[in-house]
């Protein structure tokens, strides 16, 4: 989990809306509902509407065009009224599609429930069977079943239901597996309920949303496919007619009277489209993952929306000066601040430690400096970051991108998730080189290998061809450092670079950073929660709590004489060798409430 994901706001005020209200807020879903309702109403009213008998033939009156007298939509090849046939056919198509859905939902859900609840061999046998059905191309299996049962509407219905069973079985099984191990199921079992009772009174109600989602996404298909089988002549048999067989029969007259086949097709399309629109709406309401808005595409640079714009240039400032930086996260209609107006400076060759617990805003601060906070939901709501006196947030997007990695480079926490898993590490380092230097591919790769060697990777030429998953944690972080050094940056921002590593590797990585800093005259902003690490490498330290800097000063001074209570408790958190349980007793008292989980 990254800091940013966990800090995504939960659905706030909208949580109070009921499912129906949410559904009615979705304009497309409402459109689908209205069209579907209209079609269903017309189809249901077919017996009472003043329309001719759909099966009354009149050969003298064949293939009348639309809007002809007495026949609003014309007549077909046997002189039958198309409007009447359309309404009756719609009735049949809907009935067949919905029946197929119910059958598939019943058997599929049953299989899924049993497989997910029983697990073991039952699960294995049932799901292998489902896999076998899915190994067939969808419609082909339906064809084979119709071939065996013989053409006919009912057989087509069965065939379509069977091929849709896997969708229900798989979805329901997935949810059931998770539910079967939950406490309330254990409680019911201990209460003496039988397996069947548990399945149908405890688990089924919790699985219903999944069944409804699957139904709403498959019913359109099932109408489409039963119509398709009828179109091929394998479904409805004359004189019975659904939309598909009307379309299929009319095809012979395609060139002379296209409306005979086009009209029923249009009806299928309208029907399926309205169902799919409504189904998407239902899914959005019932699937909570889509509600949080987590699927918004992050912008290249964090959105900058400052109430007051500070001067774009302030001469006379040092290498890096952060002034009243404020970063917030959009939450519902408002914003929740994560960094509340912090200021600090960083001079050439200096190492500043930014320390605080998870959720104190230290990572968000680090990412804000180069506009890397994912946005949405992140917004820079105030303050400025001056790099040699020029405000970064006043630059155009391309200007900020040009500084990233060139002047200010990052090392992130977990090198397994922060290195791209699908590219060799050498290429990833070379890419950082050529992002800012116009040298050839080969020269960039040579430089990358040299960088890998600089950060202490043995046999760098070979290792350059490795993928991240083939390296150890320490080596991966060395790659991350090599990538950061690719363009000789002035400032290195290390966001908990050693937290994901074990202690011995951690020590070596710190040694490497310290070494590089001295050799290259780098300024280092070191984000950590560990005062032990700060004591080792930082010249100065700033202590962050709840998005604010509560204390700042030289490391030695702060360690010797911390002023703020929070600083004292953080310092006390560094265990001493041989302390044993006494450490837990000592630290436990310092944090009366468990530290806030979530964003760091």
């Amino acid at each position, binding site marked *: 989990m990254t800091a940013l994901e966990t800090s995504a706001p939960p659905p706030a005020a909208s949580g109070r809306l009921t499912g129906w209200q949410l559904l009615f807020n979705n304009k497309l879903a409402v459109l689908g509902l209205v069209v579907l309702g209209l079609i269903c109403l017309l189809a249901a009213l077919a017996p009472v509407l003043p329309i001719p008998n759909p099966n009354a033939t009149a050969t003298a009156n064949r293939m009348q065009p639309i809007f002809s007298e007495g026949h609003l939509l014309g007549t077909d090849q046997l002189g039958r009224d198309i409007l009447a046939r359309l309404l009756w056919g719609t009735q049949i198509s809907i009935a067949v599609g919905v029946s197929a859905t119910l059958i598939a939902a019943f058997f599929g859900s049953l299989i899924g429930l049993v497989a997910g609840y029983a697990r073991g061999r039952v699960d294995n046998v049932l799901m292998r069977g489902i896999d*076998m059905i899915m190994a067939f191309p969808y419609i082909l299996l339906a064809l084979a079943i119709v071939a065996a049962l013989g053409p006919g509407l009912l057989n087509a219905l069965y065939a379509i239901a069977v091929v849709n069973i896997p969708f229900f079985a798989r979805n329901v099984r997935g949810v059931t597996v998770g539910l079967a191990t939950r406490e309330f199921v254990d409680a019911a079992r201990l209460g003496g309920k039988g397996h069947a009772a548990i399945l149908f009174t405890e688990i089924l109600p919790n699985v219903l949303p999944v069944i409804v989602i699957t139904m709403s996404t498959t019913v359109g298909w099932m109408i489409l496919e039963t119509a398709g089988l009828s179109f091929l002549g394998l479904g409805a048999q004359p004189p019975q007619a659904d939309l598909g067989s009307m*379309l*299929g029969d009319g095809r012979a007259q*395609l060139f002379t009277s296209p409306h005979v086949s086009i009209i029923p097709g249009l009806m299928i399309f309208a029907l399926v489209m309205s169902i799919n629109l409504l189904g998407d709406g239902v899914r959005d309401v019932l699937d909570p993952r889509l509600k949080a808005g987590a699927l*918004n595409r992050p912008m290249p640079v964090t959105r900058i929306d400052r109430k007051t714009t500070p001067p774009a240039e302030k001469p006379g400032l040092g290498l890096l000066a952060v002034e009243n930086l404020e970063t917030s996260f959009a939450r519902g209609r408002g914003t929740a601040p994560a960094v509340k107006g912090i200021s600090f400076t960083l001079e050439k060759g200096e190492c500043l430690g930014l320390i605080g617990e998870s959720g104190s805003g230290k990572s968000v601060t680090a990412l804000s400096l180069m506009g890397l906070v994912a946005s949405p939901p992140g917004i820079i709501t105030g303050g400025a970051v001056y790099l040699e006196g020029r405000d970064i947030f006043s630059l155009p997007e391309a200007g900020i991108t040009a500084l*990233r990695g*060139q002047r200010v*480079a990052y090392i992130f926490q977990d090198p397994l998730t922060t290195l791209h898993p699908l590219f060799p590490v050498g290429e990833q380092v070379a890419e950082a080189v050529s*992002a800012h230097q116009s040298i050839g591919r080969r020269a960039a790769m040579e430089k990358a290998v040299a960088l890998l060697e600089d950060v202490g990777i043995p046999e760098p030429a070979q290792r350059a061809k490795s993928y991240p998953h083939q390296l150890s944690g320490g080596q991966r972080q060395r790659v991350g450092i090599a990538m950061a050094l690719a363009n000789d940056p002035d400032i290195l921002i290390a966001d908990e670079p050693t937290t994901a590593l074990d202690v011995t590797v951690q020590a070596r990585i710190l040694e490497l950073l310290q070494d590089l800093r001295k050799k290259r005259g780098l300024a280092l902003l070191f984000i950590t929660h560990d005062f032990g690490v700060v004591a080792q490498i930082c010249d100065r330290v700033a202590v962050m709590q709840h998005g604010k800097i509560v204390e700042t000063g030289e490391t030695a001074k702060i360690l010797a004489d911390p002023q703020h209570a929070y600083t004292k408790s953080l310092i006390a958190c560094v265990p001493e060798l041989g302390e044993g349980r006494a450490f837990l007793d000592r630290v436990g008292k310092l944090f009366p409430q468990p530290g806030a989980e979530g964003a760091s």
Partner: protein
Amino acid sequence: MAGYIGKRLLAAIPVLFGLSIIVFLIMALIPGDPATAILGSFATPENVARINRDLGLDRPLHEQYLVWVGNLMQGDLGRSFRLNRPVLDEVLERFGATLILASVSLVLCSIFGLLAGIVSAVRQFGWADRLITLFVLIGISIPSFWLGLLMILIFAVQWRVLPASGMYAVYGGGDFWDLLRHLILPATTLAVVATGVIARLTRAAMLEVLRQDYVRTARAKGLSERKVIYKHAFKSALVSVVPVIGIQAGFVLGGAVYIETVFQWPGIGAMLVNAISTRDILLVQGGVLVVAASYVLFNLLADVVQALLDPRLKS
């Protein structure tokens, strides 16, 4: 890589085995009597018994299956009694035409689906995204057999720019360009649904990948947004979309049944529809089996492509 392909091939064997059982069972459990179907309802009991013995239908089911699989291994799928020729010959001939149609469709839907999905994700909530989302909705809701008729009406009847049906022109055709002209309408129609599905999933995959830590790393390096999207994000998204393309192969092979009927494409789908109507059971059996097996191979191909993209899958 060779080892990985070998492993996947081995894993495909039980699937093929299962397919053969299902196909065999569906056909073996047909109500009614194949002998009567062949001889007609006026057959004498002696003749029926003789046909049953010839076809091995008097033996227990599992023996029948073993005999059937044994013959299958030797390339013998029986004879089509309506066409009076070996099922395998007919099926392979027809399958060639279906394979051309399905492959071209699959290429089309992959290209357009991926492109549309990327544009949709990059321009999220912009007009291009809305337009593509609308197209996707239409694409997955439209009956392909109806769309085919519309295509014929527009391009073959109204504008007379493309042929309405068949694989080659009756007179003077037969070369590659003739085939291509005949392919355009059916292949496009067949690709529409799959394009929609692939576009939808590509969009979702791109949006998900763009939130990953390693994309943030790419941005922190100072890469241009173009490189971030088309190199870093797209490669990861592709890894999750490739299996979906494999699954779409199934929908394309199945959907070919409609398209071949509409455009009178001489493929296996049109053959199956005829064989079902004429109760030519052995031909149905052979046709279904070959198409289903080819779907397994398409999925295998998707697995291999996925492993080529993602080195983690090989180990």
